[in-house]
């Protein structure tokens, strides 16, 4: 069994992960351009999370989804943001990833619900980090709005993920032949 599993970490897998990382970064770029014009400042759609969802749901291993997600957070913050943005993005990603892992592997929810959970956790974590960094509990008044935004963003990215997942599975199988 271990022999088979070792064979699965092929060179082709790395190419796929690299491609997906690039896709996630482009999503991040699109967000960086589009988001500032949305009504509430600081609200993003979470497009790169689509890549995380696809990896999480097709791979049996957990580390590709986590590593690609962490790397895209670092690169997006480095290219289109600043150190402060990285703090919020990284914290948000780690917690939301752990949550999505829990909801998917343990509770066996489908992609849409896992995405919603991820969106909520990401926004809530970012708010908590902001409260800690700025030492201001007054910021918690934004929680209801961020919660709702997380649900909506998670829902939208989840739907896109579902649409893409069928073709992605085909691509994934072809890559690992």
């Amino acid at each position, binding site marked *: 069994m271990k022999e088979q599993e070792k064979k699965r970490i092929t060179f082709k897998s790395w190419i796929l992960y690299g491609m997906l990382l690039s896709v996630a970064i482009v999503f991040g770029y699109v967000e960086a351009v589009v988001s500032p014009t949305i009504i509430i400042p600081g609200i993003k759609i979470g497009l790169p999370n689509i890549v995380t969802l696809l990896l999480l749901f097709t791979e049996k291993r957990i580390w590709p989804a986590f590593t690609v997600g962490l790397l895209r957070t670092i690169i997006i913050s480095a290219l289109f943001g600043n150190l402060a943005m990285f703090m919020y993005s990284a914290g948000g990603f780690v917690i939301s990833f752990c949550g999505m892992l829990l909801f998917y592997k343990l509770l066996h929810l489908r992609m849409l619900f896992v995405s919603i*959970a991820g969106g909520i956790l990401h926004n809530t974590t970012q708010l908590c980090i902001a409260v800690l960094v*700025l030492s201001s509990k007054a*910021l918690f008044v934004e929680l209801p709005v961020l919660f709702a935004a997380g649900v909506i963003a998670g829902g939208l990215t989840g739907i896109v993920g579902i649409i893409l997942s069928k073709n992605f599975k085909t691509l994934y199988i072809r890559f690992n032949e």
Partner: protein
Amino acid sequence: MSKKEIIFLLAVLLIGAALFIGMNIYKKNQIVSTEEVLVTSDGKEYLKVPLSHYGIYRIIYKGGYNILSIDSSGVSVKEADCPGLDCVKVGTIHSSGESIVCLPHKLVITIL
């Protein structure tokens, strides 16, 4: 939709509703408003003036600036040199509990 998923959706709905109701209760309890503007920079109190002290206040943080304006319509950040200018886009706040935040400058402006 499985039972777990229905429970999940209900939980999300409940938590969301609880948050909105909680926020409304919090705002209604703000009857006693000192009508002051509190500016916190990097977690420490930088400036605290009554809402009636109209004027322009320049807030400096590590080489960056935000220009705060208090006038009859409320409190707003007129100008800043932070990327994104989220603090300017918020516009004018005028009620107790509302706040303007500039994350890159670690700035929080609240109406008490």
